[in-house]
């Protein structure tokens, strides 16, 4: 049911708004397509509408509508359906998160290696050296973490 609504939206948004728009000026197919969607106000309205609906309304309505007769039972937060017993964190050693974070960082930084491999030949030595420097910095970070004792269970 969203589509027709948006369709209407687009109809509304597509009408020429900016008086300064001169329909005559078109230069080349790309720009043609470009000015087609650049001149419409689709974005303004879609932002305002979806933003307002999704955020403002939900927040405010939930604030206004719900009667607040707080009781201990109601105040218990219910992220996972049942009132949590104790802290959800207790089972895990904090170390676990440190490892998780370290892994996350080094794992994701590796993403730069893939495009590099694609253009490795064209880049040549300079590119190789640069990537080695990049890796060196990462290693440097790892060594730091190790020196700081982040890698030991304690």
């Amino acid at each position: 049911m969203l589509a027709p609504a948006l369709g209407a939206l687009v109809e509304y948004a597509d009408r020429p708004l900016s008086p300064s728009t001169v329909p005559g000026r078109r230069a080349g197919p790309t720009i043609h397509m470009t000015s087609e969607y650049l001149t419409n106000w689709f974005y303004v309205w879609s932002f305002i509408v979806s933003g307002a609906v999704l955020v403002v309304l939900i927040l405010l309505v939930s604030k206004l509508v719900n009667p607040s007769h707080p009781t201990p039972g109601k105040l218990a937060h219910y992220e996972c359906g049942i009132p949590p017993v104790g802290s959800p964190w207790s089972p895990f050693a904090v170390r676990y998160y440190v490892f998780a974070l370290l892994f996350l960082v080094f794992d994701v930084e590796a993403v730069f290696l893939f495009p590099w491999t694609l253009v490795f030949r064209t880049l040549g030595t300079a590119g190789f050296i640069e990537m080695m420097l990049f890796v060196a910095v990462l290693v440097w970070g790892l060594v730091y973490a190790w020196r700081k004792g982040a890698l030991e269970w304690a």
Partner: protein
Amino acid sequence: MNPLDWWLLLAVLLFCIGAFGVLARRNTILVIMSLELMLNAVNIALVAVAQFRAGSAGAGVLFSLFVITVAAAEVTVGLGIVIANYRAKRTVQADRFDEMKG
């Protein structure tokens, strides 16, 4: 309307859902997840533009790569802060951090 608009619309919706999560969720972990959602919306937009829009297409892809990595760094810092606070305050509820106001 041309396909790029639909992609951008998707990005916008995803972005707003993420924003909603940031604003509405009380648990900081979930807030950080919502932040990632917003950044992924950005990635969709970037890749879509790189796909459909004339101009320097490669830039968009490159940009999205950087967004991904920065997002990782961001979540790392965020979780680190949350952990540190959990140690001090024994809570991850965002609305419990209101000691300073006015």
